[in-house]
C-alpha cells in the first residue's frame, strides 16, 4: 500500500507534465467527497412538503445526505420525523425558539456555520417561500451563485432549470466549490418516510441576533389537500366573474373530485380567490394527475405553473383560447352550465 501511495504522490507532483492521466482519479476523488446538506422546512414541529423534495433531490445526487432542521424543540418532533426517512446519514437539529419562524437574518448565519463545519459540497432546499427567502442569503454569505428552482440533476455540478416562465429550459454548470440549490417540489418526489433510523445530532448554534421581528401571520385555513402537492387540482379564472360565482361553481366541483383549488392571476387580482391559490410563474407550480380548469384562457404565465400536469382538462367558451393548445381534453361551452353539470355527473358516479 505505502509504496503505491508514494508512487501516486510522486505522479501527482509530475502531473503538470501529464495532466490528462490524472483526470480520472481526480474526478472519482471528487465523487467520493460529495456530501449534501438538505435544509428542512418545519412548521409547529411538522415537516413541510418542501423538506421531502429537498431530500429527494439530495438523494438523487448520490453521496451521504445530512438533513438540517431548526426551531422550537424540533428534536422531539420534526427532527424525529426526519430521522425515520430512509437513507439519511444523520439529522442535524438545533433546538432554539429563535429559528422557529425561519427568519433569514438569523437562520442564514446558523446554516452557514453548520455548512462550514460539515464541509458540505451541496446545500439543497425546497423552492418554497422559506427556501426562496433564506437560501440566496446563505449563498451570498458563502460567496457562491445559487441555482434556483431546478427540475433536473445531470451530474454533481450540472443542473436543469426552467427560465422565461418555463418557455425555455436551461442546462447550467456551476463552477462554485459549494453548490447552493433550491428544487422544484413537483420534480423531486418519492422519499420513503418510514424505515430509516438516522441519528439526531446537535447542530452548531451561533446565536446570531434576529434583525426582524415576527409580528403575525394570517394563513388561509383549508381542509383541502395542499395545492402544491395535490393529485387533483380544480382551477378557476376570470371567467367566473365574481367571488360568489367562484365559490358556487368551483368549490363543489373540487369537492366532488377531492381536489385542491387553484386560480389564475386574473381571478386572484379580482378578489375571487386568495393569493396563495395562484398557479403560475409568480404563484405556485403544480403537476397533479389531473388539472381541470374553467374560465382560464391560458396566458403563458399561467401555463408556466401547470403545464407539467399529467392530464389537463379545460372548459372555456372561447374555442380559440390558448389553453386548448395544451389541454388533453377541451370542452367549449359556458362554464356556468358545464361545470355544475360535470359536478352532478361526478357525484352520481
Amino acid at each position: 500500500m505505502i509504496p503505491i501511495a508514494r508512487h501516486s504522490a510522486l505522479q501527482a507532483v509530475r502531473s503538470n507534465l501529464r495532466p490528462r492521466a490524472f483526470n480520472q482519479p481526480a474526478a472519482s476523488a471528487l465523487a467520493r467527497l460529495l456530501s449534501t446538506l438538505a435544509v428542512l422546512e418545519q412548521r409547529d414541529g411538522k415537516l413541510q412538503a418542501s423538506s421531502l423534495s429537498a431530500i429527494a433531490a439530495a438523494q438523487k445526487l448520490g453521496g451521504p445526505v445530512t438533513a438540517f432542521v431548526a426551531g422550537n424543540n424540533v428534536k422531539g418532533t420534526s427532527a424525529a420525523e426526519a430521522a425515520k426517512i430512509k437513507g439519511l446519514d444523520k439529522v442535524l437539529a438545533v433546538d432554539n425558539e429563535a429559528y422557529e419562524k425561519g427568519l433569514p437574518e438569523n437562520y442564514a448565519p446558523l446554516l452557514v456555520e453548520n455548512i462550514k463545519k460539515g464541509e458540505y459540497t451541496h446545500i439543497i432546499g425546497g423552492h418554497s417561500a422559506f427556501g426562496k427567502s433564506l437560501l440566496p442569503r446563505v449563498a451570498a454569505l458563502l460567496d457562491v451563485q445559487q441555482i434556483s428552482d431546478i427540475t433536473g440533476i445531470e451530474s454533481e455540478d450540472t443542473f436543469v432549470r426552467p427560465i422565461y416562465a418555463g418557455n425555455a429550459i436551461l442546462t447550467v454548470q456551476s463552477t462554485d466549490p459549494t453548490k447552493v440549490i433550491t428544487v422544484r417540489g413537483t420534480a423531486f418526489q418519492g422519499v420513503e418516510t418510514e424505515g430509516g433510523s438516522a441519528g439526531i445530532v446537535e447542530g452548531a448554534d451561533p446565536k446570531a441576533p434576529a434583525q426582524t421581528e415576527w409580528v403575525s401571520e394570517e394563513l388561509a385555513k383549508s381542509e383541502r389537500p395542499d395545492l402544491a402537492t395535490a393529485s387533483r387540482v380544480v382551477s378557476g379564472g376570470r371567467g367566473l366573474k365574481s367571488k360568489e360565482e367562484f365559490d358556487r361553481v368551483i368549490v363543489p366541483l373540487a369537492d366532488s373530485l377531492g381536489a385542491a383549488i387553484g386560480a389564475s392571476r386574473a381571478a386572484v387580482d379580482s378578489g375571487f380567490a386568495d393569493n396563495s391559490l395562484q398557479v403560475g410563474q409568480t404563484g405556485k407550480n403544480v403537476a397533479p394527475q389531473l388539472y381541470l380548469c374553467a374560465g382560464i384562457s391560458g396566458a403563458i404565465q399561467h401555463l408556466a405553473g401547470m403545464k407539467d400536469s399529467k392530464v389537463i382538462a379545460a372548459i372555456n367558451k372561447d374555442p380559440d383560447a390558448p389553453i386548448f393548445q395544451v389541454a388533453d381534453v377541451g370542452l367549449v361551452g359556458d362554464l356556468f352550465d358545464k361545470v355544475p353539470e360535470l359536478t352532478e355527473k361526478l357525484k352520481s358516479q
Partner: protein
Amino acid sequence: MASGLRILVPVKRVIDYAIKPRINKAQTGVETAGVKHSLNPFDELSIEEAVRLRERKGPLKVDNILALSAGGAKCADTLRTAMAMGADRAFHIDVADSNDGGLEPLTVAKMLKEVVNKENINLVLLGKQAIDGDQGQTGQMLAGLLGWPQATQASKVDVKDDKGTVEVTHEVDGGVETLRAQLPMVITTDLRLNEPRYASLPNIMKAKKKPLEKKTLADLGVEDKRRLKTLKVTEPPARQGGGKVEDVNGLVSKLKELGAL
C-alpha cells in the same frame, strides 16, 4: 435613525412579459434582437412603491429615489421610464449585452452593495424576481452582503415612525406574514403590493431632463465573474393538445380513458 428615506430601486430590462421567447439556433440563449423589451413587471411595482412612500407623506420623508439598471445601451430607456414614473435620478451601469441573461445575481448584489454604501441608501426596493431568469435571488443576496434585514414578496409596506421602524406584510405559502424591522433594510415586491401608474406625457418629457449617470462595474470595483456556465438552452417538451369533446359526457369518458378519473 434616519432623517429621511434614501431609496434605491434596481430595475431590469427584460423581454416583454406578453411575448413568447424563441430559442436561438445555437441553443445558447433566447433571441433578443428585434424583440420587444420592457421594464420587469416586479420592478415597476418597486418604483411605484417608492413613489407612493413619497406621496404618502409618512413619518419619514423621501429624500431621494435612485433608479439603477445594468446592461447595454437600451437600459437607458428603461431608466427614463423609471424616472417618468417618479424616480429622481438614475445610474446606468454599462455592461455589454449578452444572450445568457446578463450579470449573475451575486454580481448584481455586490454591485448594489457598493452603490448603497456610496450613495448612503437606507432602503432598497427590488422586484421579487426578473421574469427572464426567474431566479429570485438578488434582494436576499444584497441583504446578506449588507447584513441588513430583509422582507421578500411584500404585499404591504408601512413606515411606522420617524425612527425608521417598518412593518412589511409579505406572501408566504398558504397566506401572509407580517414582519417588523428597523431601517436600513431590503424589501422585494410582489404583485399584490400596488398597481403601477402609467407615465404621463409631461412626466416623460420631464424625465428626459433628470440626471442619468453612466458608470461601469470597474468604477464600483466589482468584477463580472461568471460562476455558472450555460451549457444549453432548449425548448421545453411540447405538449400536444388532445382535441375537444362535444359535451360533459364526452369530457368524463375522455378523462376516464386517460386514467384521470
